């Protein structure tokens, strides 16, 4: 970990609840957490524990009820709806479980979408899109529609879309949840490369222990509370089939890289 860089994400005493049927339902309670720039962090926990909620807060898709939340020095709680949208477009890349590509657009056009919000010219956009598709190994599928691609390929298009704007943070909510082992490994390898080669900070929500074990840092959430924050020996995530049984070395749960 690069100790010189300031942390990218700083969360202090974060609360989030949803109103349902007239009463407040707490989802996240008193979460404090920091994530360093360039970290690869896995977030695990039982269904309904608040993983997606936490990820959405960090990625600026939702707003907390209380607490401090700054990402890259920006206090997300102070931004207006429009400012938040612009901030997301600049700083966050999104990967979802069900790919969430627009079915009527080709792979190329899907990847181009986030660039339409930038002042880039058509030619510059094309260069960026082609580079992104090359990175995920889909240069030959540019003109294919999502329906003509396999799940793994669709997820690679989604990754290309997430990285085409060169964001600082990549939010991935169960990106391998719908894929077979091999496709999942491809996706995880790609994400590792984004982390190690391009220095992207990645937050990976997953139910798959094998996927989580690739991450140097693992956080467990249960019923809206952060119960464990553990680090691997590994300094960075590892490619391909993971060595089984990487020894656990649980430091006391706490913030700070």
């Amino acid at each position, binding site marked *: 970990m690069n100790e010189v860089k300031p942390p990218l994400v700083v969360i202090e005493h974060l609360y989030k609840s949803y109103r349902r049927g007239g009463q407040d339902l707490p989802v996240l309670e008193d979460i404090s957490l920091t994530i360093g720039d360039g970290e690869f962090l896995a977030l695990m926990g039982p269904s309904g524990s608040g993983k997606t909620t936490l990820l959405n807060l960090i990625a600026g898709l*939702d707003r907390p009820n209380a607490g401090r939340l700054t990402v890259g020095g920006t206090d997300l709680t102070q931004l207006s709806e429009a400012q938040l949208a612009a901030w*997301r477009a600049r700083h966050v890349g999104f990967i979802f479980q069900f790919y*969430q590509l627009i079915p*009527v657009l080709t792979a190329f056009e899907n990847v181009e979408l986030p660039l339409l919000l930038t002042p880039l010219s058509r030619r510059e956009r094309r260069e960026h899109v082609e580079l992104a598709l090359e990175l995920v190994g889909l240069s030959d599928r540019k003109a294919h529609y999502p329906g003509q691609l396999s799940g793994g390929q669709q997820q690679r298009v989604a990754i290309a879309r997430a990285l085409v704007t060169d964001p600082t943070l990549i939010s991935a909510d169960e990106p391998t949840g719908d894929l077979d082992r091999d496709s999942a490994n491809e996706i995880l390898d790609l994400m590792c490369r984004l982390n190690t080669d391009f220095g992207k900070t990645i937050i990976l929500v997953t139910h798959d222990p094998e996927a989580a074990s690739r991450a140097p840092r693992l956080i467990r959430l249960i019923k809206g509370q952060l119960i464990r924050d553990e680090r691997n020996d590994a300094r960075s995530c590892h490619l391909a089939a993971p060595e089984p049984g990487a020894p656990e070395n649980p430091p006391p749960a706490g913030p700070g890289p």
Partner: protein
Amino acid sequence: MFKLSWRNSLRHPLRSGLTISGMAVAVLAFCLLRTVVAAWYAGVTTASPVRLVVRNAVSLTFRLPMSYYARIQALPGIKRVTYGSWVGGTYIDEKNFFPQIAGHLPTYLAIYPEFVIASDEMSALLQDRRGCVAGRKLAERYGWRLGDLITITGTAYPGRYELVLRAIYRGDAPTVDEGRMYFHYDFLNETIKKRMPDMADMVGWFMVQVDSPELVGPVSEQIDAMFANSLAETKTESEAAFVLGMISMTEAIILAIRVVSWLVIGVILMVLSNTMAMSARERLGEYAVLKTLGFRPRHLAGVILGESLLLALMGGILGLVLTFPAVYLFKTSLSQYFRVFPLTNLTLALGMATSLAVGVLAALFPAWQASRVGIAEALRKVG
């Protein structure tokens, strides 16, 4: 982003196809109904603001003595006076009905400058006592050529009138009726003098052309005052009022047609709104993704509006294109009833404008819905 509107509109070919067809049929119906209404009112639109009709105060079926002619002409502010009678005859067969008017042709045709007649035909017509002039459409309908003998059997005035076609007139505007026939009143009067002397020297109406539109009122009053308390009192009104009076009975029907034409637009608005709402509901997840990527509600509204307008535009254009053959069909098959069937640019423009308005209206609700979709909630439903 426009690409997205375009692709979305083709996403469900059947649904889009049906919506476009519905749109087209509605625009077609709208234009056709408006044209029917315009046909009814054609007489009014061509009515000149300086022409007055003097008729018997009792009713249109009562006549006036020809001797009024000179007395009307003597009044100040009057440019021309002419007179005519409705012949109500048939040609060969009873179903071949078209308006025939026996009038004082030299003045009658001068009062109707909208009837355009070649000068050589005009002089031939005026020189032949049995001569007649027919509108271009009427002549086309029966294949008449100049010099043809045309026999009219009278009903209002009994007898057979053997006429010679000496001239064909055309209208100087599409709203001018080209389905009438005019012949010399004197020729009619000769026969009447022999067969029913008490109906001789009586005319159906006088047409008066005043010097300027402001004189319509005062001159009307003067004429009616002059013949007050005489054997045949007169009622004088502007030509437009006269024509309107004739079609006032049908006013209710016309109103109904108008209402229906707008109802049709209302129906199509619902159809398109439904299509758009259905599509938008299916795509809430996609809209949420676009929002996630940083797109704003106005971008989404643009995509939705684009799709709605595309559908409306395609339907509207198709409807307008279909209107031309439909109007032509109406015109030819119903030429007895509607001698003028004017498809105006205004109708076409209105057809297009309403379809675009429908396109915009139909997009409002889905656009509002899409702009309100909460990202976290919508993604939760799909993912």
